[in-house]
């Protein structure tokens, strides 16, 4: 469903990605791990066009994104990026809920504005999404009145309201208090169990091990190892993976 070929990207002046290739099948759950700044977040952001890249191509659901290296991409590039975004939902580390809208308004905004969906139907679907993540009673609250865990769950619901075929999670629990990590991970787990194609960048190794079909290890912009979690976590093939894992697992 997602194919990456020969991806090159310069990030703040240095050559971050030097030709990355990756294929992700429909329904697959891929977890990206690696030290901070290794490129796993940037890689996810390239897939839905929040970051431009200088060489290579990314194909999502048959829509091709070529190297978009101009300061101002032309109309066709922008249209393609938008088509990709309609199929791929994204959840951010900082939640990024719209503070001037209620929880419900956050969820229905894009379906109404982008898809032109029917209001009554959309609100009904939004309420059932809120029921799924168990915060229906906060539908009329503003984001600032919610805890971090609740905000992130709403952010997930907001992305799901667009009925995406794949979801990108960019360190979804990194800015949460420890006691709230579990509630967010359990929502993601439900999603995975329903068969959603899911890409997650995370530092939660236990979670990675539990849900991943495949683990991809990033280091300094390179994919240094990829394989099923059992293999990566018990018999890492490279020394860099072993060093990284021993450092995070010790904590």
């Amino acid at each position, binding site marked *: 469903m997602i194919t990456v070929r020969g991806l090159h990207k310069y990030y703040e002046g240095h050559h971050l990605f030097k030709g990355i290739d990756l294929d992700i099948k429909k329904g697959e759950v891929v977890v990206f791990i690696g030290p901070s700044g290794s490129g796993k977040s940037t890689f996810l952001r390239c897939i*839905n*066009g*929040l970051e431009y890249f200088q060489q290579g191509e990314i194909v999502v659901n048959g829509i091709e994104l070529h190297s978009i290296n101009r300061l*101002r991409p032309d109309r066709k590039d922008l249209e393609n990026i*938008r088509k990709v*975004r*309609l199929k791929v*939902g*994204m959840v*951010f580390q*900082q939640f*990024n*809920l*719209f*503070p*001037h*809208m209620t929880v419900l*308004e956050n969820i229905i*905004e*894009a379906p109404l*504005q*982008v*898809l032109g969906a029917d209001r009554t139907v959309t609100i009904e679907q939004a309420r059932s999404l809120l029921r799924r993540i168990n915060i229906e009673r906060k539908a009329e609250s503003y984001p*600032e009145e919610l805890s971090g865990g609740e905000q992130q769950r709403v*952010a997930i619901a*907001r*992305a799901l309201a*667009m009925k995406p075929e794949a979801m990108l999670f960019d360190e979804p629990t990194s800015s949460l208090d420890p006691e709230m990590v579990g509630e967010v991970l359990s929502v993601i787990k439900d999603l995975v169990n329903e068969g959603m194609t899911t890409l997650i960048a995370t530092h939660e190794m236990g979670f990675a091990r539990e849900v991943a079909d495949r683990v991809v290890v990033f280091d300094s912009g390179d994919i240094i190892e990829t394989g099923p979690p059992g293999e990566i976590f018990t018999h890492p093939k490279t020394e860099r993976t072993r060093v990284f894992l021993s450092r995070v697992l010790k904590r």
Partner: protein
Amino acid sequence: MNKSGWMKNFLRVLSLCIGLSALLFWVAPSRPANTLEKIQKSGYLLWGSDAEGGAPYIFPDPKDPSKLIGFEVDLADEIARELGVRPKQAQNAWDSLVPALMRGDSDIAMNGIEITPQRQKEVLFSEPYYIYTEQLVVRKDEEAIQGVDDLKGKKVGTLSGTVAQDILMNMGGVDVKIYAGQVEPYEDLAIGRLDAVLLDLPIAAYYAKPNPKLKYAGPPVGEGFYGIAIRKGDEDLKKRIDEILDKLMRTGRLKAIYEKWDLWNEQQEKLFLKAGGTEGYVSLEESKKAPVYTFFPTLLKGAGITIFISFVSMALAVSLGLVLTLMRLYGGQPLSGIATGYIEIYRGTPLLIQLYILYYGLPNIGISMNPLTAAFLGLGMNYAAYEAELYRAGISAVPKGQMEAALSLGMTRGTAVKRVILPQAFRIALPGVTNDFIALFKDSSLVSVIAMVELTKTYSILAASTLRFFELGLIVALLYFAMSYPLSLLARRLEDRLKRSKR
């Protein structure tokens, strides 16, 4: 509370205001080909004059300041009556009367305008209606100055653009101080800032003669004619006015006016033959004593105009500012460069200069607008630059993740700006915008330079004719405060609300 609701209402009001100001553009009057026909068709004779410090020519009646009186008001009444129309005064600064006439702000200009060869190059003049002389005035205790020959090395005040100014300049060795109003030179003379004042006799007769601290020095000098200025090309109007003046002189009605205002002297005999009665003259002493409440209706009318100008200008500033910000941040070149240039130029030059260029400068290149339109545009375009900067600050205070989240949901950049970025940016910018409104409100006093009689101009007209600068000044200041204080309360409340919510 529905937070997107107020945005919608705000935009609705905004577009209404833009529409209104656009309308004002279209209805700006165009200059008719034949002024005499226009006067007869409209039923009004629009005569240009300056009521500020204008006694005894034209000034507000102390008993009813909404009414203008003066010997030229009486003359305008007589001329209009002969034309079968009603007179209507068109206020303008005295030294701008001729340019204003040329651009079509009035049908004629009549306000002690001396017939000079220089002016005759620009406009037509009627036959003279008054022979003026220049009277030198000094302090009562002055011994050294007996006449104009004693002025070498002395500080002498006069009015800008008058024949008296030319006389003083041509004498050489005189330290000439130029004033814009005719009250201030006598005030400065009385308190010793000047040694003498040379001005037209009617002015001296009204302002200096009753003042116990001042006296005439020597006989009047020079001699010249006041004429009614008429646009070139309006020869038939000039002919008609000359006939009327001749009739007024022959029937003694003009002499009656001059005697009423104590302006009759032997010089006028050259113009006249017959005479009439005298009554209804209002002296400076009476103006000084009129109870202060008589000025309120006039002042409140000025305040109303100030409010009107401020609201329309602010609406223009708020909307044009938004356009500028969007051009600057999202427009790409060359739009963003144009917007940046506009903002820097408007912020970097004085509003006063912008107003002068807009109102007096643009007619030179064929763009002429009425004072009200010029006031809206001048204030609105200036403040738009400041609003644009406030919005830009507001937009950059919105976290970057907001745009990314909106884009990741499939919104276009435009939708994201409209639905996600701007509502948040507005809320951040709102207290600043309210503060700017207060500032604009006070800056609206500057449009008095482009012939708008708003509160400040009303004040200076009234104060100059009554010399009650102090008490009228306090009242006007109080009026401004009463109007701007509710706005600052509003600004403070908005700021508090912003502080309470985290964003």
